[in-house]
């Protein structure tokens, strides 16, 4: 597809002494545990196929050890795959020579790290300017150029502080400013907010969403937190043991979880806050009753729908046109947990 910024195709990663020699077993379906016991290799990623559209936030989610960090590091080739393709803007990153790859990392994709990855011997301003300095811009000029981002992430006045003098949340703001300063179109964020306290994490999500409204970057965002994924993701891919088990529209995943692993994942979310009317409505129908915007969540809609004379309401889009309708039963059904739809027998261990 033309508008796909990043295309990951049949990507495999096996850690160990001779990964190529055991690739065949993995391709034939050998499991992670079996591979480790029989061949002493660790399965990192298995047949990953993900298309990441431009200018959106694509979330990759999974429990610890599911291969998220390994996957995102393939996009800028901090990790070499065992097999597969990584196409960015139509160009195969894996075929790039040393210099080309360096240019790719300098200009096209920047990264934010879980443990911040700041340089403790550089000040806030110097850290933010780092990407530009690596590009060859003189330090003073680079600081001038990145100052705007230091201010934009809320660190004005802290330019001359060292990272050790800042709280975790402020350190990650530095990490974000550093990534933004190179004007790269792609932003890779590996559990960027996971190390932060919940309140600060929400703050940082707001900062990111605010920036994204303006900048429209292609963001690949890793998290193990579903609430975070739902809050900022335009699409979600869920990883387990190095394989993608479901990907698509977040609303779709909540309504139709592919297996019990995902049911486990989504069972604790606040469905009333997460599920939107457009997900539940009967498309193309209309009723006598009040009109509600399609992006309202169930909690917001519940009161109105239950007070309506017909216990139903119309769903309208941004322009005010009716696009469907919803009734009280549907809202209540949406609030209760679903069963596994696709494969009820496959119990997740």
């Amino acid at each position, binding site marked *: 597809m033309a508008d796909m910024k990043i295309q990951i195709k049949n990507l495999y990663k096996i850690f160990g002494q001779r990964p190529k020699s055991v690739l065949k077993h993995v391709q034939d379906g050998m499991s992670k545990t079996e591979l480790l016991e029989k061949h002493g290799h660790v399965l990192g990623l298995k047949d990953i196929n993900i298309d990441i559209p431009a200018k959106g936030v694509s979330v990759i989610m999974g429990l610890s050890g599911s291969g998220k960090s390994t996957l995102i590091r393939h996009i*800028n080739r*901090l990790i070499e795959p065992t097999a597969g393709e990584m196409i960015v803007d139509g160009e195969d990153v894996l075929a790039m020579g040393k210099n080309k*790859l*360096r*240019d*790719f*990392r*300098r*200009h096209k994709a*920047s*990264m934010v*790290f879980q*443990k*911040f*990855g*700041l*340089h*403790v*011997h550089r000040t806030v301003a110097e850290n933010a300017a*780092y*990407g530009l*300095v*690596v*590009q060859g811009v003189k330090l003073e000029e680079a600081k001038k150029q990145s100052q705007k981002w230091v201010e934009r992430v809320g660190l004005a006045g802290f330019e001359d*502080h*060292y*990272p*050790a*003098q*800042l*709280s975790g949340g*402020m350190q990650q703001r530095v990490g974000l400013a*550093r990534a933004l300063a*190179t004007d790269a179109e792609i932003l*890779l964020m590996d559990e960027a907010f996971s190390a932060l306290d919940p309140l600060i994490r929400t703050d940082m999500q707001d900062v990111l969403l605010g920036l994204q409204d303006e900048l429209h970057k292609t963001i690949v965002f890793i998290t193990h937190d579903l609430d975070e994924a739902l809050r900022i993701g335009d699409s979600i891919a869920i990883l387990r043991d190095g394989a993608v088990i479901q990907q698509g529209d977040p609303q779709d995943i909540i309504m139709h979880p592919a297996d019990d692993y995902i049911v486990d994942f989504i069972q604790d979310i606040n469905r009333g806050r997460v599920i939107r009317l457009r997900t539940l409505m009967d498309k193309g129908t209309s009723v006598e009753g009040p009109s509600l915007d399609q992006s309202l969540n169930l909690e917001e809609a519940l009161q109105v729908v239950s007070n309506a004379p017909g216990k139903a309401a119309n769903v309208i889009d941004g322009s005010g046109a009716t696009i469907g309708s919803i009734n009280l039963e549907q809202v209540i059904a949406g609030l209760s947990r679903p069963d596994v739809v696709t494969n009820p027998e496959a119990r997740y261990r």
Partner: protein
Amino acid sequence: MAWYDFFTTVPEMERQGLRDLKKTIDGSFRDFSREFGESLENFFDPVLFFLVWLEKLLLATPWPIIILIVAGLAWLGSRSIWIVVGSILSFLAIAYLGMWEDTMSTLAIISVATTLCLVIGIPLGILMARSDRLQAMITPVLDIMQTIPAFVYLIPVVMLLGIGKVPGLISVCIYAIPPIVRLTNLGIRLVEKEALEAADAFGANYFQRLFGVQIPLALPNIFAGINQTIMMALSMVVIASMIGVAGLGVPVLRSISNQYLALGLMNGLAIVALAIIFDRVTQSYGARLQKHRHGENHG
């Protein structure tokens, strides 16, 4: 022959064979030094020239200026008025007790030896940090250099280069170089993986990684290495004076053979004073280098 002879007599090579073995080794080394001694000496000529020049310069400089320079360096390094005052008093005492010239000679050889150690040792440590195989090769060599008694390696050095400043300098360097190599290697290996990964992710090349991340972050360890190298060079001064190095070691040696207690004690104390000054100044400089690591946390 009793049955227990096996346990009571050490299995020993027969006399003649042993003598021949030693003779062969000595002979071939002597041939080697006859062959290469001269070119090696020429190779070290620039170092010798520099050492002699520095010694002359120190001796020709008026004493108040030397003390001013010492005080200035101590201040730059330590930013501690106590260390500065201590340095000035030590040098005044050294001058007053007639050890000025020997002290200048010692300062000259310590400076040149340390410089030589750093010029060789830091790049070696950097290479070692890059390659596990190189580390596995060099580490045992460093172990040997540090544990073999200094007198033992004086022998081949003297056979090669005779007695004088250059062999003395080389002996000091052999003894003093291991810490700087080790700690450069260690410091670079201990650099946080995350900091380096960030450099890679932003497209840093080899030199940008090395000079922008690895060396700055390893600097506290490298500084500890410099400190130890200086200390070890200083402790080698007495032994090096046995093979013709001028300085505070010479009167110490003389005191041993003539049983001059006071002379030996004074010169020994002068060496200790130099050691303490070097140690305090480099250590507090090293500590200042990593101040940014423990900023008070803002919560």
